[in-house]
């Protein structure tokens, strides 16, 4: 048997499958954490399958089997390329804020990911609304987005992401309030920013965050909402349904409560509390192979079904087989006699 034949060996297929099962179990049980435990068997299986497709005559005689295995190989290759080019990240965007790639927290980025495409995305966050049932059970999330290049508005939410140039922005359960602040320094420079408070209502008991002024003074901000989230009735979380003041701590002993529009003189400048807005967290996902993966998997499964239908006798099996019933009835009547 030549080398290709040995690589195509079914013994290697079985060994590869067993190794893959073992690798999956090792990672699942957290006895190993390197993806090599899965990547290596998958690589072996891919090479083994490719060799089998070339040398095994059964594939040439059985189209359905060929289609399934070609698609299986395609899925492995597409998933690999997708992994090399993909991006996973997280970003929090406030109402009225424009998407800024600098705010993106990258969780994972493949070496082939086209970063310039992400930088070219241009949209602005609109209103955010989350419905709650009684007992604070989260319901529908709706986020309005303005696509600036197209001058259009879309609504995204649960199961419906923003899709732009292959990127998908999924709303998450991470959302809350933000205080919009303006810092005016002694030199007359104005800077607008926002403090995001912890996720709400999950952390309704701890709506605090910290910030350091350009002059180096440490401030702690506490959001004082006018209403607590009701637990007995349905409820909507958005900017319109809640008013808030801002308590500013300059040190342990000193705190000032600011209403919207109030200013606070600080060392080196003045801080103005503009208003409260909502922010929402998105999971960002990019994989250029998604649609191709789906197509390859679906075609492969139909190939498999086709193969089993004709090669394993389903065309015969899918009819009643009275001969078998008669065999049993004859045996039963004989035993009763």
């Amino acid at each position, binding site marked *: 048997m030549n080398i290709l034949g040995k690589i195509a060996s079914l013994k290697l297929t079985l060994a590869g499958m067993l190794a893959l*099962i073992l690798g999956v179990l090792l990672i*699942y049980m957290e006895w190993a954490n390197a993806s090599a435990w899965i990547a290596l068997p998958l690589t072996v299986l891919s090479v083994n399958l490719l060799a089998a497709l070339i040398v095994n005559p059964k594939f040439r005689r059985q189209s359905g089997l060929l289609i399934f295995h070609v698609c299986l190989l395609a899925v492995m290759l597409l998933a690999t390329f997708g992994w090399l080019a993909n991006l996973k990240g997280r970003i929090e965007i406030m109402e009225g804020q424009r998407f800024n790639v600098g705010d993106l927290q990258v969780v994972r980025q493949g070496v082939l990911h086209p970063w310039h495409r992400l930088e070219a995305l241009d949209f602005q966050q609109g209103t955010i609304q989350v419905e709650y049932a009684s007992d604070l059970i989260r319901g529908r999330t709706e986020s309005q987005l303005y696509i600036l290049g197209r001058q259009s508005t879309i609504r995204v939410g*649960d199961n*419906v992401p923003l899709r732009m140039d292959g990127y998908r922005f999924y709303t998450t*359960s991470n959302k809350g309030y933000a205080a919009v602040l303006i810092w005016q320094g002694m030199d007359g420079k104005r800077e607008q920013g926002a403090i995001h408070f912890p996720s709400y209502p999950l952390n309704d008991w701890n709506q605090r965050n910290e910030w350091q002024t350009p002059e180096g003074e440490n401030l702690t901000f506490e959001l004082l909402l006018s209403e607590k989230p009701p637990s007995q009735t349905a409820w909507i979380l958005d900017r319109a349904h809640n008013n808030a003041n801002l308590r500013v701590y300059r040190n342990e002993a000193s705190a000032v409560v600011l209403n919207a529009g109030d200013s606070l003189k600080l060392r080196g400048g003045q801080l103005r509390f503009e208003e409260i807005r909502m922010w929402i967290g998105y999971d960002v996902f990019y*994989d250029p192979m998604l649609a191709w993966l789906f197509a390859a998997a679906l075609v492969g499964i139909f190939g498999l079904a086709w193969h*089993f239908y004709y090669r394993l006798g389903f065309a015969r099996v899918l009819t009643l*087989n009275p001969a078998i019933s008669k065999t*049993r009835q004859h045996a039963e009547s004989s035993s*009763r006699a």
Partner: protein
Amino acid sequence: MLNHLHVPEMVWILIGITAYLVGSVVVWYGVMRQRNVDELVLSMLVAGVIFFMVAITMRWLRTEYGPFLTLFEVLLSNLFSLGFIYTLAYLFYPVVRSSALMVLPFFLFLGVWLLLVPAEAGQLPATYQTIWLWIHVGVGKVFLGICLVAVGLAAILLLRKLVRTDAWLASLPDDHELDAYVWRFIAIAFVFHSLMLLAGAVWAQDAWGRYWAWDSLETWAFITWLLLGLSLHLKLTYKIPQWSGWLLVMGIFAVAFITFFGVPFSSMGPHKGII
């Protein structure tokens, strides 16, 4: 179990379990007394399916969501779906009827388990409100039902190896013919399991922003798929001994059973839906 008495659909559930109990008794009686009880068993299967369908419908109307969330709902829906698929197999494939000896007691086991778990309703998460959930769960139930048919036959074949002198077992078609049906059903099951994985990945992509994350349910479903593929390769290529094939089929069903009924309720991963 007394806590369940306030649940409106419980009457129908109890009647359905009774139908499966009667079916179990009847099928074993038929074997002991060498009587043909096929029609009576079929009646009990159909009755059980209808009663569980009524129970599910009542609960669905009351909770305003489908039977997807709690262990109670998953068991209830599987008592219907597995019963429905097995009844179809029983009706259209007479050769399968011998497996009722094993399958009906299995339904009874699921029914008793149902009575022991909390019956309170949950709250359907927003990520469950998609057509892909229906497709994923639907093909998954078809997979498990078809796998159950194969396992039932495999169990009967193993029983025949152990109890060689029984006249009824001896009167069944030969091992070769029944074995062929076991593997045909496993092959169909493999197709539906593959569809389940694909639909699950599509659902996961839009529900949680990724199509695969090796969470507990995905991992065990993938292991089940690999075991199915492995077993088909072993059977079709290496012609493994029949008895080892039957044990393999039963092992695969055990893994699938744990995946369906154990993992979702012991895992805290997002697949549980409560985010």
